């Protein structure tokens, strides 16, 4: 999502949309749920770059090893 230009990704709701269907689905094997999510397009390159940077995950430096 962020690589595509979006920021503020948030899953808004989850619903089991397969329960009760007339035919069985392979979806159940993978724990599949219906969801609604939202995000917005970054307003500027600066905001987008900041969102990309926020994705970085640096491990704390080991010390005394």
């Amino acid at each position: 999502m962020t690589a595509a230009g979006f920021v503020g990704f948030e899953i808004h709701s989850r619903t089991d949309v397969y329960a009760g269907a007339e035919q069985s689905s392979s979806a159940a094997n993978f724990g599949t749920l219906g969801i609604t999510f939202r995000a917005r397009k970054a307003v500027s390159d600066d905001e987008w770059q900041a969102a990309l940077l926020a994705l970085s995950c640096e491990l704390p430096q080991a010390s005394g090893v």
Partner: protein
Amino acid sequence: MRGVSNDMTQTIGIPAIDLEALRQAIQDEYALVADQPEHGFHFLVGRPLAQLLGYQPDWLEGIPEPTIASFAGTGNPFSAGPLQPGEHVVDVGCGGGIDSLIAAKMVGPVGAVVGVDMTPAMLAKARASAVAARLDNVEFREGFGEALAVEDDWADLVISNGVLNLMPDKDAALREMARVLKPGGRLQIGDILVQKAVPQSAKEDISLWTG
């Protein structure tokens, strides 16, 4: 803003799958939903599904029953934030048009909605329902989610419902949604969340994409 990835992001690999065969299988499945919604599918359809997902009765007022009957979404884009009068909306994979028509009602006559779908049977149903509902601020265009026939920075809001999961190249689809949105424009999507790892062999099995 587009087409950039770096070492801080991870894009999802595209399954090795025959894209044309996949699109044909999806079209066959959803043409059946359009023409015979009572057939019985592995997913819920129609008004019961809309109720399950929290579609408000007033949203459905005036929407022709054939379009409601072929609703096959997986979420509720309208629950994720309100639409404002005058806004421009793109509905990616609009199907029989239920979300496009609801959006057209919400944005009003000064607003505009473009629904895009690749299945002719669904588009025919959507266009007929727009005429029946007397909504002339909505237009339906044939096309693919990865190449929307919409100009850059046109939309205030992109909605989609149960479609992104059917597109192998999700990165391309998301970039295309970003392209048509104005800066700061919103994305409100219903789709599916897979909580267990899907083996590569399953990703490459077309029958599992539609079943």
